[in-house]
């Protein structure tokens, strides 16, 4: 029986009833990765180590953990000891970290097996995976179409059924938007829920790791393992981590879902809008109530984000200077020349653009007008959410205004066009709130995602609402036809 498109829960059963061994499972997963090489989901494979670890699991026969022997893929911005970590950038194309990110370490300690590192937008800056130094990732649903970004490789690897789940990071929608475009489930947890130690920083106050998987149930399994305080990340939350999997099957009768008045859905593609209306009905049928809420400042999310994220990134990316690691330009006159050449050769255009914008926003004379102003508006946006959550349990929006688009069709003339793709996802990063994207049908044979935003630390509610939806529908079971790859 093929392991392709199987969920973690499915694979666990197969491993437990011995219909497959860990080694066979990993072998198949690795073979699928090879078979669909053209998708370009992976930057680096971890074959030798994976096979070894699977063999060891078979020998030890210890399967106390749900994740034992399960193949996973890690976004290539999680540092993995001894395994190349590139952030899909030329500047890190030869970087071998001497340590492993906490989130990945927790997953690996629970017995899961990292089969490879996935392609992404360079340093997670992008919404289409087109800024990767290692080339575009194809959307498994349609060749030549983007998988979304920045966790595009992770989303495509899961959508193609190569691995049941993968890690991603989400700074402005980088888990949820590719999950939506690839027809899978993706969760951005509360800021601080998962340690950022070992996650190569894009924007420190917005970055958050999370799972991409076929089902909300699998997301809960991964979140259970990835969450928790880490002394190495003093911004990781020191609060109790509930058992997300255990809480996933509660009735949603009486669940109050808010619809954001300021998001005028009639501006959207009529079919994307129709999908949304239908899911709303489905939720109503399951007992949820819909209430219109107003978040007066939410439309300022995109400009707020594009001031804060580049500012933080301009500083975070200063360490890539060619001195201690990463690409160093050849034949340089002096230290300054070394910096300028190494960085200019090492970074792609979008990364440079954002560093420059951030440098500008922080520079003398502009700091108050751009950076500080944005952080003030950020508080207004957070206050709006706080008010909304007085009367609702969750908020519902489309994940993305569009379905996946063709390579090169957006943002090449005007970068802001691509930034607007993040309209629905960005605000939860600004406020630090959890949000999930679940597939809810297709438009022109391409998947569409539905987003639920939850209150602070209420991933349990989101996962429950998503799971109940998936129990009562089969959108999440739809599989792409991979015949073109």
């Amino acid at each position, binding site marked *: 029986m093929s392991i392709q498109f199987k969920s973690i829960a499915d694979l666990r059963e197969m491993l437990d009833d011995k219909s497959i061994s860990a080694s066979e499972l990993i072998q198949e997963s690795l073979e699928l990765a090879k078979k669909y090489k053209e998708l370009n989901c992976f930057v680096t494979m971890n074959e030798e180590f994976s096979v070894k670890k699977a063999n060891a699991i078979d020998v030890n026969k210890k399967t106390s953990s749900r994740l034992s022997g399960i193949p996973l893929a890690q976004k290539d*911005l*999680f*540092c993995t000891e001894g395994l190349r*970590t590139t*952030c899909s950038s030329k500047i*890190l194309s030869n*970087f071998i*970290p*001497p*340590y492993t*990110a906490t989130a990945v370490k927790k997953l690996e300690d629970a017995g899961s097996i990292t089969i490879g590192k996935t392609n992404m937008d360079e340093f997670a800056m992008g919404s289409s995976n087109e800024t990767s130094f290692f080339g575009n990732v194809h959307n498994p649903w349609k060749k030549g179409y983007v998988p979304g970004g920045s966790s595009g490789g992770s989303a495509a690897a899961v959508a193609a059924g190569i691995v049941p789940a993968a890690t991603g990071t989400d700074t402005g929608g980088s888990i949820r938007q590719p999950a939506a475009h690839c027809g899978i489930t993706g969760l951005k947890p509360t800021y601080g829920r998962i340690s*950022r*130690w*070992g*996650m*190569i*920083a894009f*924007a*420190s*106050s917005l970055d958050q790791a999370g799972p991409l998987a076929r089902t909300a149930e699998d997301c809960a399994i991964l979140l259970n393992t990835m969450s928790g305080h880490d*002394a*190495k*990340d*003093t*911004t990781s939350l020191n609060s109790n981590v509930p058992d997300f999997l255990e809480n996933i099957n509660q009735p949603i009768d009486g669940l109050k879902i808010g619809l954001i008045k300021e998001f005028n859905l009639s501006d959207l593609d009529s079919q994307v809008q129709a999908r949304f209306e239908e899911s709303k009905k489905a939720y109503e049928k399951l007992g949820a109530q819909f209430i219109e809420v107003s978040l007066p400042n939410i439309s300022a999310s995109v400009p707020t984000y594009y001031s804060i994220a580049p*500012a*933080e990134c*301009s*500083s975070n*990316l*200063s*360490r*890539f*200077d060619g*001195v*201690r*690691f990463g690409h160093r330009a050849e034949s340089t006159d002096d*230290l*300054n020349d070394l*910096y300028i050449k190494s960085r200019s050769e090492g970074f792609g255009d979008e990364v440079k653009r954002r560093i420059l914008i951030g*440098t500008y926003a*922080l*520079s*003398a004379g502009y*700091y108050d007008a751009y*950076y500080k102003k944005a952080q003030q508006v950020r508080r207004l946006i957070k206050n709006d959410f706080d008010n909304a959550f007085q009367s609702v349990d969750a908020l519902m929006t489309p994940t993305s205004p569009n379905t996946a688009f063709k390579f090169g069709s957006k943002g090449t003339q005007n970068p802001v066009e691509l930034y607007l793709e993040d309209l629905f996802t960005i605000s939860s990063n600004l406020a630090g709130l959890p949000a999930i994207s679940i597939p809810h049908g297709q438009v022109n044979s391409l998947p569409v995602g539905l987003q639920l935003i939850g209150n602070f630390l209420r991933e349990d509610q989101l996962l429950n609402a998503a799971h109940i939806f998936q129990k009562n529908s089969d959108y999440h079971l739809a599989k792409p036809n991979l015949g073109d790859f």
Partner: protein
Amino acid sequence: MSWETVIGLETHVQLSTKTKLFSRASTAFGASPNTNVNLIDCGLPGVLPSVNKEAFYKAIRFGMAVGAQINQTSIFDRKNYFYADLPKGYQITQMDLPIVIGGSIEIIIDELTKTINITRAHLEEDAGKSIHDEFEGFSAIDLNRAGTPLLEIVSEPEISNAKEAVAYMKAMHQLVTFLDVSDGNMAQGSLRCDANVSIRKKGDKELGTRTEIKNINSFKFIEKAINFEIKRQIKILENGEKVVQETRLYDSSKDETRPMRSKEFANDYRYFPEPDLLPVIISDEEIQKIRDEFPELPKEKEIRYQQEYGLTAMMRKSLHPLSPWLISLKLLYKKRKITPFYQIG
């Protein structure tokens, strides 16, 4: 024409903690190159800082000793610039909300007491070390010192000459060693200063254009560097020329200051709150605890010893004109055969 000198000092005190300000690597001096360096100090991708509590306590202890206001909520900021021995491309320091604000230090010059006010004192991390002359064509980077906690103490521009500057630094040295805030080892760079020197016509209200002499690490050099700089600036002004605002280095071998070679045409550090560190909030209980552990203050001690042991001002002056209480303590130790002097009192 009669000229007046105005000097402000920025003193960098290396705090005597066991570990670094944002990592748990050792701060021990003299380790072989790049061994007191962990993932954080190396500025590797993906690492995050965490604050050393003891460094905060030491900074607070200093603040209390100089009668300053302690900011119980203080935040860290990033100061962005590129340099080979600055691993992250930014230094974590404190800009808007430093831990210590105000306070003062007394110096004694010719038996007269003068109060030098302190503007602020903030915590920041030290950079690594660049070795320029050991390898042909290369500078070599040793990150052992990177991340070592420093307390930067900024004085008001109230110092009038090199002698006062030396007196201020000596008083500072005694205070921080007495408080066990620093080992005060100047040869190892535990106490060093930048001197901002400017000259104006006597009676002028406005300050003249200043130059900053960087990284002076001995009492002798402080005096020499400042005196050289005063003479240099007066000469410029007397020729009817203008002093250029710049950073200078003191070259002890030639006994002169010279401008630092720098290609920076724009010095814009783009300070912003460090998003990897939340604000540090020190509770009232912690403040009380630090207060309770406080060693007896030098001045109080001086009064007591003067009363108890009859040390006269004359005796003190003949031994060490600038450290009345230190001398008293030394005599006392001798008497009691006790060595570590911080524990007494």
